[in-house]
């Protein structure tokens, strides 16, 4: 089937509904080109999508439990009194190292989830602010004959892009975002570190080479190459360079002799 045949009515409708601007454009058309009830509904629908996403993220963070530096949620009393018991129990008996690793992994995972939610919340707020700005802009244009409303999809798209980007950049410029981004980056690193420790311990038990072993070998190799590079006497380097240049010339001469147009004297 050619792509032209596949490009049907339903596909267009689906594409339009997949983007916020498509939804808003359809609503603007339904309102006769000026924002009215359909646009109100469309904006509310988009905001409620953001709310649903945010509440889903919040649920994940709440179930993770930990928020503070000590890995405990102050709003959740049960982990607060249970945590010291669990920490102490993990230090007892023959499996204490494994238990401590597992606990550490859980705390790292909780911190990662919270950091992720914190960043997502800032970004979702900026998306919401962008929608608010666009809605106000449309309403102001509707009331002012000097300011034309978007008459095509492309113009509405440009309005949405400009307003959303301005709100996004405002969020990115905030100290709150810089701190949240740092926390997310560090929490991600800490989580990976915990997974690595778990895996390394398992491999060590099976007497298989683990990450520590590979890194140790690589470090030694780089240090050896560095020391060779820096300790090679200058004269030796120059001699090698001259030798390479001489060999290149020789190869070039040999190649020239073997070219079809070359005739021996």
């Amino acid at each position, binding site marked *: 089937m050619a792509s032209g045949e596949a490009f049907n009515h339903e596909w267009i409708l689906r594409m339009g509904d997949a983007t916020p601007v498509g939804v808003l*454009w359809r609503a603007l058309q339904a309102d006769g080109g000026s924002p009215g009830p359909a646009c109100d509904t469309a904006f509310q629908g988009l905001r409620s999508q953001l709310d649903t996403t945010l509440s889903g993220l919040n649920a994940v963070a709440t179930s993770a439990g930990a928020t503070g530096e000590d890995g405990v949620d102050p709003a959740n009393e049960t982990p607060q009194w249970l945590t010291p018991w669990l920490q102490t129990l993990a230090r007892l008996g023959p499996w204490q190292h494994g238990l401590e690793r597992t606990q550490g992994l859980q705390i790292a995972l909780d911190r990662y989830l919270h950091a992720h939610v914190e960043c997502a919340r800032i970004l979702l707020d900026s998306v919401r602010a962008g929608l608010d700005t666009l809605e106000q802009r449309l309403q102001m244009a509707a009331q002012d004959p000097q300011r034309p409303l978007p008459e095509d999809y492309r113009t509405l798209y440009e309005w949405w892009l400009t307003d959303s980007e301005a709100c996004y950049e405002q969020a990115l410029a905030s100290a709150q975002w810089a701190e949240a981004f740092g*926390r997310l980056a560090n929490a991600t690193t800490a989580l990976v570190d915990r997974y690595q420790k778990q895996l390394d311990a398992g491999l060590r038990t099976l007497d298989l080479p683990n990450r520590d072993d590979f890194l140790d070998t690589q470090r030694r190799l780089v240090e050896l190459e560095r020391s060779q590079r820096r300790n090679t006497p200058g004269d030796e380097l120059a001699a090698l360079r001259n030798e390479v240049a001489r060999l290149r010339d020789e190869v070039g001469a040999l190649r020239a002799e073997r070219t079809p147009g070359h005739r021996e004297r």
Partner: protein
Amino acid sequence: MAQSPFDHPLHDWQRRLIETLEQAAELPVDTRGATPFTHHGEVGPGMHLRRYAPQAATGQRPVLIVYSLVNRPFILDLTERRSLIAALTRAGHPVYLLDWGYPKGADRFLDLGDYIDDFLATAAEEVAAREGATADLLGVCQGGVFALCLAALQPQRVHRLVNLVTPVDFHTPGDQLSRMAQGVDFDQAAQTLGNVSAEWLNSVFVALKPYRLLAQRYMELPELADHPEALHDFLRLERWMYDSPDQAATAFAEFGRECYQRNGLLNGTLTLNGRPVRLSAIEQPVLNVYAEQDHLVPPAAARALGAHVGSTDYGELAFPGGHLGVFISRRAHAELLPRIVAWLAE
């Protein structure tokens, strides 16, 4: 306003998008660059020195291009029409490009001292030996920082210096990348993650301008239907944007900590192999090119060099555009590059 979907303006846009996608599928994407070159030795692990022959025997001094570690250098040679390298070879310069390659596992332990004091210095030495003249260095973005370090620590290897969109002050207002870097524990990241994944780094860069880079950029794609040359350029640029090497962990952490967090290049606290890098020690002529709408290297971040460099022969060129515009825009090729070429010919 009852319209059938087929009367919808969106319909034309979508139809043209499909045409463009079909045309794009037929086009090859070559990341080698437009200008022929020869390999001229390996100066570090997987790091090759390329030589682009001059197109005219004018006896011009060689130019060694020091590109950033973050992306691949074929942006400098994107097409025949838009090639900074070709502009230099046309002016008679033998051009060398240090291709940093793609770091492998053990390269995670390479530090900035290895990259600059060893590999870049070796490249400059090779060029001088081959051409019989000390090279002019052309540093691009992070590569400009490397070129400044080499000029400060090994001045005998650098004749003159052209810096393109090179950050020097990493703490200027409006430097979004720097703000985001302040809270990151780079050393822990390097130790844990090893060589920093290109995908991760690209996602950070895209996150600075997601509406432009992920939405608007593709919105304009249908306009390239039936413009094969423009579509080809678009695809090459698209490949370049995401064809990034991983970052050698130790060097990346050092750059993030010393430059972005401690502003060590400006403050003189950056050290390589135990030796401090002093911008005041740079006495070679310097041409500093910055972009007025650069969201990665704000103009003030680049222009800070003027107040700290030791050279008495210091000049600036402002380009009215963004970070990439300096290399690929028509305006840069019509107005900016001729001025750089003229400066190098002085």
